[in-house]
């Protein structure tokens, strides 16, 4: 059913502990993915995008990882309560995941056909022959030319873009209801990037699955996603429909990301790229104020007194910020923001 919530993560916190001490990788992360929609996670390196995705897959190491609070509910089932065995049926089954580096994401010593077919056999319990037929069908679906011959190819015999297509074919072969794509195009060159993103949006439309698209590129978000979740230092700072967030940015960090985007056309040459000053805070302890306060251009004394509550900014749009109005009006004249209003 389109529009119904499929994945819901509520107040999730995650810590890594080891010799170096404790690391609060996620704090109070809440979001949901509806059936058939594309939700994008954005944020700079280390903000917790992959860790959030890996938590949904329950793929983080068993030792040193703790979830002090929160829940991950997929299709009515609590994933944090699942055994490893139960998760093995869900991974690659209900949830498929593709990763950044298609060059190294396949076993080098097996053919791509075998690698697709083994996934199909595992999840659908079909014979090798049926699984191979399915593999061929999937390679055709992701528009691999000459799929009949390519099915026996080894990963090193394919180009990067081709491999990412095969990866998508492999993951979609088991009809996942949710596809998690963790920076699927970062390692590819620009033209191939666009093709892969187009493939993902087309397949989402044809197959009706939900997608979580992880990227650090707001441009990709703008072109591909329905909703966007902006993360900073392990927290969700702003979340909403793409048009709402890009047209009315309400958090200082989102504003920073938008201002750091290269502009198109004439403005591109007029204005230098703005960088966000300062560095991401260390996460070895939880702070009792807004995590972005030290880098924020809109900071007030109230920001340093307590962790801000999540504010409803508009229909389908929330931000964890005390000064949402100031941020929105300050960016009113930004070219990108104007384009989305």
């Amino acid at each position, binding site marked *: 059913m389109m529009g119904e919530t499929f994945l819901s993560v509520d107040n999730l916190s995650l810590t890594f502990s080891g010799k170096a001490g404790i690391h609060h990788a996620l704090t109070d992360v809440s979001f949901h993915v509806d059936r058939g929609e594309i939700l994008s996670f954005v944020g700079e390196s280390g903000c917790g995008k992959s860790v959030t995705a890996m938590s949904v897959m329950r793929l983080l190491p068993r030792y040193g990882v703790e979830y002090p609070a929160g829940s991950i509910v997929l299709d009515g089932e609590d994933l944090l309560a699942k055994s490893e065995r139960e998760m093995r049926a869900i991974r*690659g*089954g209900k949830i498929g995941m593709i990763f950044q580096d298609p060059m190294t*994401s*396949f076993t*080098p*010593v097996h053919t791509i056909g075998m690698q697709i077919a083994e*996934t199909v056999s*595992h999840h659908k319990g079909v014979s090798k022959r049926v699984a191979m037929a399915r593999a061929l069908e999937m390679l055709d679906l992701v528009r691999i030319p000459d799929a009949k011959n390519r099915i026996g190819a080894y990963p090193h015999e394919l180009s990067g873009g081709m491999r990412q297509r095969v990866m998508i074919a492999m993951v979609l072969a088991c009809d996942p209801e949710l596809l998690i794509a963790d920076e699927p195009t970062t390692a590819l060159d620009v033209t191939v990037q666009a093709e892969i993103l187009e493939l993902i949006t087309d397949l989402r439309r044809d197959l009706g699955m939900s997608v979580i698209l992880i990227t650090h590129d707001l441009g990709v978000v703008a072109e591909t996603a329905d909703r966007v979740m902006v993360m900073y230092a392990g927290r969700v700072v702003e979340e909403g429909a793409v048009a709402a967030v890009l047209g009315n940015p309400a958090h200082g960090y989102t504003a920073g990301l938008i201002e750091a985007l290269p502009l198109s056309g004439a403005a591109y040459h007029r204005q230098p790229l703005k960088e966000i000053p300062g560095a991401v805070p260390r996460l070895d302890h939880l702070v009792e104020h807004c995590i972005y306060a030290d880098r924020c251009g809109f900071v007030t004394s109230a920001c340093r007194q307590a962790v801000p509550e999540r504010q409803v900014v508009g229909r389908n749009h929330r931000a964890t910020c005390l000064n949402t109005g100031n941020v929105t009006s300050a960016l009113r004249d930004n070219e990108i923001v104007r384009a989305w209003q």
Partner: protein
Amino acid sequence: MPAYILGRLAAAIPTLLLVSVFIFLLVHLAPGDPALLIAGDNASPAQVDQIRERLHLDQSLPAQFVIWFSNAIQLDLGASVYSGKPVTVLIAQRIEPTFMLAAYTMVLTVLVAIPLGTIAAWRANGLVDRTIMAFSVAGFSVPVFVTSYLLVYLFAVKLRWFPVQGYKPLSDGIGATLVSLTLPSIALMLVFAALIARVTRAAVLEVLQENFVRTLKAKGMSTGRILVLHVLKTAGVPIVTVIGIGFAALIGGVVVTESVFNIPGIGRLTVDAIVRRDYPVVQGIILFFSVTLILINLMVDLSYALFDPRVRG
């Protein structure tokens, strides 16, 4: 693929030539007159001359090499100075126990070392890993004859599960052969397995860090399938390489083990020939071991193609 095999085969030929020159020179350039040494202390000058002529020692070195080499490729390695029997016959008589000992050891080693090394890597730095690696250090540092005597004391003298020594030929049935070789094979295996387990651990650990392992987990594959079908196969090349290298060490171990367990193999023949200064036999054995090692290396090279499609080209 056929090109790869032919290439490897062709590459083995110069190695073989070089080795034979080396072995030839080893004996002929050794200090002292071989004829005198062979004839012994009580020989008359006439007898020494006769020996010199029979062994072509009166001819130039290159001429001698040509004679020796053309004989060698016709499997004529001369005769034992001690018994007068042809060297090839002496070696052929002793091949069976040595081959059986090496093969049995190899099978035991692979069965023990590869699973242990893989488990150690999978549980890297955990208790299981530390235990396995501690045993592997022990296995590698204790000499073969010490473990041999300990094994004999425990399993032959005390428990009486296996014979103390001796060899039952295949003509007595393979079961009897294997029983007679179990203790020597275990003794040899302990050293060998320690090496292979460590290399397996390192190779598997490296492959486990690779991105494709994450992909496999994300596909819902079981740990066993990931380890055996994907990780071990990818790690196959370095592991097989070390098994091949380890074989050279195994040959040294075979000599000791055959003496301890009184097995009438090539190891024993070597010891006897050296003690008797039976140069043609020593030379023949060195050549035999060299050719064996070259063949094993060739098999290792060919097995690369089995593991890694990128090698096949």
